[in-house]
């Protein structure tokens, strides 16, 4: 029977569960006024952040070692809640004209957030698997939410099929790990692997495949090559706010659990997974960039761009032990949250106003909606890593980590990829600024969307101009992980 203290430590999760249930219940009674549920969910996100913050001073596990309550978990819980908050602000206007059943949408968004907070805190393979599945199931439904839209349905189905396969692989990997170590707890796995008396612990022929199988599930969420195939189709088909959510939320949670699993359970295998991840990082960033160049649809462009961004972030994981490594991942993820959500919300706004996602239709946007165009330039600068933006800070950290760890070629691959990425980001800028506008000449942006863009813009720029507090926050949040072997 969980005691009162445990309940308190579960505050964020309980709050999210409560809000989600409340939304589902209220949805039965609120006809045609479902917007209120969106704002209720938003309030729930703010509450989650506020409840999470005080937990950051703890460092312990609860529920028989299933969940961690530590700064790293809190950091990613706040990331999850912030992501959903911005996505909700972008959803309300967008969904009003597109779906008659918005109540469930908001409820599912809250549940997806709950799954991410659980994933970020999981310290046991079983808990990891459950939260991974929880996140997947909510995501599948959200992608296919526009049920009369073929693309949406197709995207949801593809996501489901790919997801089911990788889930099976992951589960198989977990069972192998359990077979070798006799435990599902991350810390117990580490101990078993470090035990010289355990003959299986030295058996690379089993260990390495099983580790790779486990990583497949995380790589799927993060969309690392070769587990990325679902990304462009799901982003293109999904309601754009959901695509925005998928590009940031599950990715961040995936990195959280990737860090935790690798650093807590598998430090003894680091030589192997560093090699594997290095290859994946370079292939992921290069592939994402090269394919993004050819895209005509802005959602697909952002999908491939988000694949390559994951490749950059991975450099921080690879160089986890240096000063810029793990904090670099956290900083990059936060900067990426503001930047990529910002870019996506501009796309939401544009799509909402014009009904188009074609890059060619962005022609002359600076004359039609100057603020949207200007904001998108800043977000693209940040994605390309041009200062003074959060994206620059993130790149400074992850590329710096690669250098600090002595992985020069990775850093060089990273910066050269950034140059390539500028080409397609500024291909959109070229449309917006250099080409003549199409009618109608004035596009009034709804207020909630505007507010979400302003917040993202502020986050992006403040992280670039005064990064000190963000660096401190990230460094403090990984303190616990840093102490581990």
């Amino acid at each position, binding site marked *: 029977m969980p005691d009162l203290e445990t309940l308190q430590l579960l505050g964020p999760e309980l709050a999210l569960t409560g809000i989600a249930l409340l939304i589902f219940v209220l949805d039965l009674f609120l006809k045609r006024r479902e917007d209120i549920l969106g704002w209720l969910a938003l309030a729930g996100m703010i509450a989650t952040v506020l409840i999470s913050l005080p937990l950051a001073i703890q460092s312990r596990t609860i529920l028989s070692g299933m969940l961690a309550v530590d700064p790293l978990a809190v950091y990613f819980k706040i990331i999850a809640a912030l992501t959903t908050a911005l996505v909700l602000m972008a959803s309300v206007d967008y969904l009003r004209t597109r779906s008659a059943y918005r109540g469930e949408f908001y409820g599912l968004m809250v549940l997806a957030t709950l799954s991410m907070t659980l994933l970020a805190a999981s310290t046991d393979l079983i808990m990891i698997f459950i939260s991974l599945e929880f996140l997947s199931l909510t995501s599948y439904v959200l992608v296919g939410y526009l049920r009369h839209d073929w693309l949406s349905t197709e995207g949801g189905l593809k996501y489901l099929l790919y997801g089911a396969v990788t889930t099976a692989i992951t589960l198989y990997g977990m069972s192998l790990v359990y077979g070798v170590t006799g435990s599902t707890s991350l810390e117990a796995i580490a101990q078993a692997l470090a035990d010289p008396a355990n003959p299986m612990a030295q058996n690379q022929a089993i260990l390495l495949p099983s580790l790779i199988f486990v990583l497949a599930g995380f790589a799927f969420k993060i969309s690392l090559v070769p587990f990325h195939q679902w990304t462009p189709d799901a982003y293109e088909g999904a309601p754009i706010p959901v695509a925005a959510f998928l590009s940031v939320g599950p990715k961040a949670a995936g990195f959280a659990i990737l860090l935790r699993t690798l650093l807590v359970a598998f430090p003894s295998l680091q030589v192997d997974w560093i090699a594997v991840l290095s290859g994946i990082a370079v292939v992921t960033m290069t592939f994402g960039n090269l394919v993004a160049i050819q895209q005509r649809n802005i959602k697909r462009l952002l999908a491939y761009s988000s694949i390559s961004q994951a490749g950059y972030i991975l450099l921080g994981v690879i160089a986890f032990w240096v000063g810029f490594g793990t904090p670099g991942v956290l900083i990059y993820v936060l900067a990426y949250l503001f930047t990529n959500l910002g870019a996506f919300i501009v796309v939401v706004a544009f799509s909402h106003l014009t009904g188009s996602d074609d890059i060619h239709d962005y022609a002359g946007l600076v004359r039609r909606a100057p603020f949207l165009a200007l904001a998108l330039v800043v977000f693209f600068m940040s994605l390309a890593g041009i*200062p003074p933006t959060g994206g620059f800070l993130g790149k400074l950290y992850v590329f710096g980590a690669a250098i*600090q760890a002595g992985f*020069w070629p990775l850093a*060089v691959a990273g910066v050269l990829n950034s*140059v390539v990425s500028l080409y397609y980001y*500024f291909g959109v800028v*070229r449309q917006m600024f250099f080409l003549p506008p199409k009618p109608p000449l004035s596009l009034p942006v709804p207020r909630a969307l505007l507010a979400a863009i302003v917040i993202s813009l502020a986050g992006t720029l403040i992280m670039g101009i005064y*990064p000190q507090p963000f660096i401190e926050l990230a460094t403090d949040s990984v303190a616990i992980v840093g102490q581990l072997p």
Partner: protein
Amino acid sequence: MTIPYLSLITLAPLAGAILSLFIPRQREGAIKWFSILVSLVPLALSAYLWVSYDATLGGPQFEERYDWIPAINVEYRMGVDGLSVPLIFLTALLTTLSLYYSAFTIQERIKEYCALFLLLETGMIGVFTSLNYFLFYIFWEVGLVPMYFIIGVWGGPRREYAAIKFFLYTLAGSVLMLLAILAMFFAKGSFDILRLQQELRPFTDDFFLQSLAFWAFFLAFAIKVPLWPFHTWLPDAHVEAPTAGSVLLAGILLKLGGYGFFRILLPTFPQAFHTFAIPIALMALMSIVYGALVSMAQWDLKKLIAYSSVNHMGYVILGLAAAALLTPVGLAAGSSAAPAAATEILNSKVMALNGGVLEMFNHGVITGGMFFLVGIIYERTHTRQLREFGGLGSQIPLYYAVMTTTALASLGLPGLAGFVSEFLIFRGSLPLITPIAVIAISGILITAAFLLWKVIQLMFLGPLNAKWTGLPDMDRFELITMAPLIFLMVLFGLYPAPILTMVNKAMSDLFSIVPVVAGLF
């Protein structure tokens, strides 16, 4: 409390750019005059810097230091010396003139145009005032974005291609520089430009790493200068940019690269620079000769001027390479065997460097003026084809006079500014790298040839092309734009002391303050 002059100079244009966004788009006159007024702030303050910089004391002055990101030891540090003060003034002057000239010539999207020029000014001046790599890099990159838009929106027919080419090229160079900056930080724990040169001196024990870092910085700066073979972005960008954009590209953006050589490359990696001095000198030689020859082959006036920049910036790098090269005589002399010879070598080195800095300033004034003149004639004739002109001398005598003065300054006629700097460069480098310098002198000949033959003769002499009867001469605003530039060409041609004293102090300090440099030479 001391007044933060440098922050004011650097950030006033940025503040102006942001404020100008709040002026309604329709009030074009107000936007134009507001941005000109804003640009006068850095101009006036940088003139004050020039007057009050203490050249006998030397070193960084008007310093500002604040903690900025203590977590990674980043300071907000600004300071100027004899190298940066003239370049800051040049930037402020050319920006004001550009905005003034554009106020009469730019017709569309005035608001964005003015805001972008002010933003560009912040980026350019920031590079000259920053003494911390983090700050330096931010300004270095920030300048790219407005120039991309200036070329892409207001440029010529191939503007979109030229804009993205400019951006990608320069970005490719600078990202590698970022890696080198990070490597230095991890080696020595500091982003401070001067401390890294004077005390911390990264990679002195590992020549391979020093070479890597050196070439990373070199690439960033060489692309910007641009040094042959990294110049291919320049003709596109300069030709397609609108007049004022070309002025700032040639006048200032190229100097950012040159400034990097003087401020960072030479004092931070003296051994590497010394080792690679000959290949770099050869690249400079190629820039000089090839730039001049390609210039000569052009029939488009703007392209001709654009390529001549490759030639002129080649002189700057030639002087640097000569100064970095350690001659056997110098080494022996260092052990006081032949103090007279050692002093002579050192003098030559300082002279070559002085010439290089002066050449950057003069090239900014002269070629900036040239691009204005190209714009002035293009506004009237809508052509830049040299073969279509002819006999304009009698039709537009004022323009003829101004263009001739500028062209003569550009080819290095004694009495005008270009001569002083080129003389110093060659006087300095001839004893140090005689064969290369001798060949490089041919560049001056070729420059004289194409300026006299193609520009002066084809445009102004001979019978008047009937098409141009009734062509109006220079307007008052065009004369006002050109007047300060002509004044500087004449002033520093006859009396270079005001700038030379300051530059000389900064350059000789390089050999006394930076221990490695001093030890090496």
